[in-house]
């Protein structure tokens, strides 16, 4: 179940565009540990577990896996809407919300 984004939705918050394609930043160490995705940013020149260690929850993990540098945000939302029995609007909000947070932390970059 998909829907065309409204014009006002094309740019949201921290400039997350539904037409944009995102991928994980190169300045990360990412490892799956005990079923969790653990992310350590290294862009500052140090991998600092004291200050910057991130774990993605189940929802974030599903979205993260789709941020492959090949699919637009809209197509990621559409794909997740087909896979999961959740309202497309909710999925859209989740994906955009996560991307805003990832962009804020410089953990993803637009391709």
């Amino acid at each position: 179940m998909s829907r065309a984004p409204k014009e006002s939705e094309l740019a949201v918050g921290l400039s997350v565009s539904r037409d944009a394609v995102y991928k994980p930043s190169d300045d990360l160490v990412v490892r799956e540990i005990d079923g969790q995705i653990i992310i350590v940013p290294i862009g500052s020149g140090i991998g600092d577990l004291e200050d910057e260690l991130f774990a993605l929850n189940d929802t974030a993990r599903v979205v993260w896996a789709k941020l492959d540098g090949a699919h637009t945000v809209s197509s990621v939302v559409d794909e997740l809407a087909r896979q999961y029995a959740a309202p497309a609007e909710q999925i859209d909000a989740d994906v955009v919300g996560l991307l805003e947070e990832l962009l804020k932390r410089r953990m993803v970059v637009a391709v």
Partner: protein
Amino acid sequence: MPYAVDGGVHSLSGEALSALLGDVLARGVPFRFEARGYSMFPFIRDGDAVTIAPLRGRARFGEVVAFAGPAEGLVVHRITARRPGVYEIRGDYLRGPYDIVPLNSVLGAVTRVERRGRSVRLGLGPERLLIGGLVRLGLLQPLVAVARALRAPFVGQRVLS
């Protein structure tokens, strides 16, 4: 919260910590984390923030290094000897057998220790040679124990005049 990038404190196993350390050092970047335990007392204490950097060449005698221990996961101890193909490594405050660690199993060396926000240099500079020798001879732990016993009666007492 439907999505989360959780930057809070995570309890990682020693094995997981060791794997992350290896990943970060492989990118040529130092790794900072909170040390747990008392095996490196008094130079590294429980709760100190320890920075481990990639090795430049082989580790040297007296250096404090990190390696993946067979049981505990990540171990941070001092090199007390080098033999063909292996290091002898031991915790400063431990008594008992050395760890025999293959040269290429050492992940990195401790370059910085912070305690309550302040850098602690003792144990990482040239004095590491003396400390390494004392640890190798099994003398550091008794010396530290004696020093603590002598100091203990005065700790916490006010001087009245």
